[in-house]
């Protein structure tokens, strides 16, 4: 076991899979010699050579379109989109093409692509660098969307994603890259891509979150504990598919839920979860299932980030609103 940051765990997962399978290719803008703008691919070109880890020309649509093509030749592409806000440049290649490859060839071809990309607010990146766009992706049939909340999960989930034979969007919250370390096994391990993780046990309230919001939820839960409210915290790990069974099991026990997302309120992952809960467990609920989200504006680079981003205080307020309902 070694203590690793999330970025180190990601590099470690990439190294593991590059070693395991010659068909794994890692590429994107600045991922070669530079090791990626966040150093996620640091040292990998030196270790595996430019044939396996390489820079591409600057074109996201080219990067993902090429990944689809490489898939037909038995490769397992692990492209990087430098910041997830740039995925709009590649929307057809991702959603219109890679996600439909298996379907439109009747299974003759498939696209075992893992698109890695940093996202998320709070680190003072400019326009279209911080946006939480997972909601768009979860609307695309054929894709899986994975969002780790820390180093241990990142390694296991990334290895599972690379080994999965369908396209996976693997979103890495920038705020978590270096914010804390965790024990991460040096050996390979996988984590299911359709199983949520109960990260904190509780009896009065179910908090459902993913990515950085898992940590805000845990913090809220710790503070609420002192006020006598016991919160269970579920880390979704994957937002497509959603492990609704784990959520329901918890809600049936706590009878209340608050769903937390960093993304804007309209549509989105949280809205879908609220719908699922009320459809399947309405008689277990003591209060409406609430959401904590950002407002329906663009992400405000640098100026109003702190107010705009949901935090543990917002979560605590919603929990109390539910408890007092």
């Amino acid at each position, binding site marked *: 076991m070694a203590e690793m940051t999330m970025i180190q765990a990601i590099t470690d997962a990439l190294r593991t899979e590059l070693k395991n399978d010659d068909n794994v290719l890692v590429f994107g*803008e*600045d991922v*070669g*010699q*530079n*090791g990626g*703008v966040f150093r996620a691919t640091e040292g990998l070109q030196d270790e595996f050579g430019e044939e396996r880890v390489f*820079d591409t*020309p*600057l*074109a996201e*649509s*080219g990067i993902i379109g090429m990944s689809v093509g490489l898939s037909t030749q038995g490769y397992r592409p692990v492209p990087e989109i430098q910041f997830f*806000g*740039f995925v*709009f*440049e590649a929307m057809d290649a991702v959603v219109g093409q890679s996600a439909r490859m298996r379907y439109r060839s009747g299974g003759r071809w498939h696209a075992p692509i893992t698109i890695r990309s940093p996202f998320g607010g709070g680190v*003072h*990146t*400019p*326009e*279209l*660098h911080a946006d939480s766009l997972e909601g768009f992706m979860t609307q695309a049939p054929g894709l899986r969307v994975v969002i780790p909340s820390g180093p241990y999960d990142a390694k296991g989930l990334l290895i599972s994603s690379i080994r999965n034979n369908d396209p996976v969007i693997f979103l890495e919250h920038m705020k978590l890259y270096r914010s804390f370390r965790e024990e991460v096994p040096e050996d390979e391990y996988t984590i299911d891509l359709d199983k949520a993780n109960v990260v904190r046990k509780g009896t009065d309230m179910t908090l459902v979150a993913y990515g950085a919001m898992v940590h805000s939820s845990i913090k809220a839960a710790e503070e609420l504990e002192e006020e006598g409210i016991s919160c269970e915290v579920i880390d979704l790990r994957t937002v497509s598919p959603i492990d609704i069974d784990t959520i329901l099991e918890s809600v049936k026990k706590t009878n209340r839920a608050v769903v937390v997302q960093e993304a804007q*309120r*309209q549509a989105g992952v949280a809205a879908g979860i609220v719908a699922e809960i009320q459809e399947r467990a309405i008689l277990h609920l003591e209060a409406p299932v609430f959401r904590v989200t950002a*407002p*329906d*504006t*663009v992400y*405000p*680079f*640098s*100026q*109003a980030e702190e*107010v*705009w981003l949901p935090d543990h205080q917002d979560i605590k307020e919603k929990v109390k609103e539910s408890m007092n309902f």
Partner: protein
Amino acid sequence: MVFKSPVEGIEEKFEMIQILNEDGKIVNEDAMPDLSDDDLVELMRRMVYTRVLDQRSIALNRQGRLGFYAPTAGQEASQLGSQFALEQDDFILPGYRDVPQLIWQGLPLYQAFLFSRGHYHGNQMPEDVQALSPQIIIGAQITQAAGVALGMKRRGKKNVAITYTGDGGASQGDFYEGVNFAGAYQAPAIFIVQNNRFAISVPVEKQSAAKTIAQKSVAMGIPGFLVDGMDVLAVYKVVQEARERAVNGDGPTLIETLTYRYGPHTMAGDDPTRYRTEDMDSEWEKKDPIVRFRKFLEDKGLWSEEKENEVMEKAKEEIKTAIKKADKQEKQSVTELISIMHEELPVNLKEQMEEYKEKESK
């Protein structure tokens, strides 16, 4: 093989256009632009001023007093020579590094600082500046430029749309689409590709099998030029001619300026020593646009150390004043943000407006 590519060796047709060489000597008298002594001095003043602005911006960024900043030193001739060829009503579609062109077109300095800080007031161009705010998404401005130019043509304006991207940006699909559209509509657009040899860390050689970016004009059926981007006279001249063609109805031009950025890609943690050698840096510093233009002007008796110091002092003063003014700008609030999302607030935002008013009053 029976068939030989008809464009083999095409790059040889794209010789680099230079007027003023590294030693400050005119090497192409016939191409010398028609600029008065005052114009020449003004060009120099702007380059020196902009170099100071770059140094100060880097320092301010390190002190945490600026936000997003992409250094410009090395690219002054390419940026300011091209802007100098514009008329006030021409339309600029800049990339994130092209703030100096906006400033010399009339964007107040304090607003440039607010742009860096992510305040939307920094993106609000004054009435007499026809420009979009610097584009972050590489290539997006290029297709838009074709639209601005087509619109101008249809309105019968005698103006051009000018857009800037980098050597990396020329790999985007949007680049080919935008330049091709402008060609198809013979729209009055000028596409400048500032080839500073790197897209963050990726060397230009990895972007394409083509030896130059200028030669891509051949495929679009429009004029294309390769220019010494460290030579302010050459850049000015080529852009000025492109402008003339455009307003005369002769369509767009693609211009590649060969240049170099001395600093890091942006101030957000880029480390150029990971991908550039010191030798390469110093080789390019020898081509410096200010050094050679200074020699040229001094030989003509138009410039002196005193004059340069004056410009530098004035720049520092004005930067200080502008930063103070930027500091006075109230921080952008979420309610303000909500209010500028639509012309008319939709219902969801009306509700959220109330919610955030309360939040922000706490």
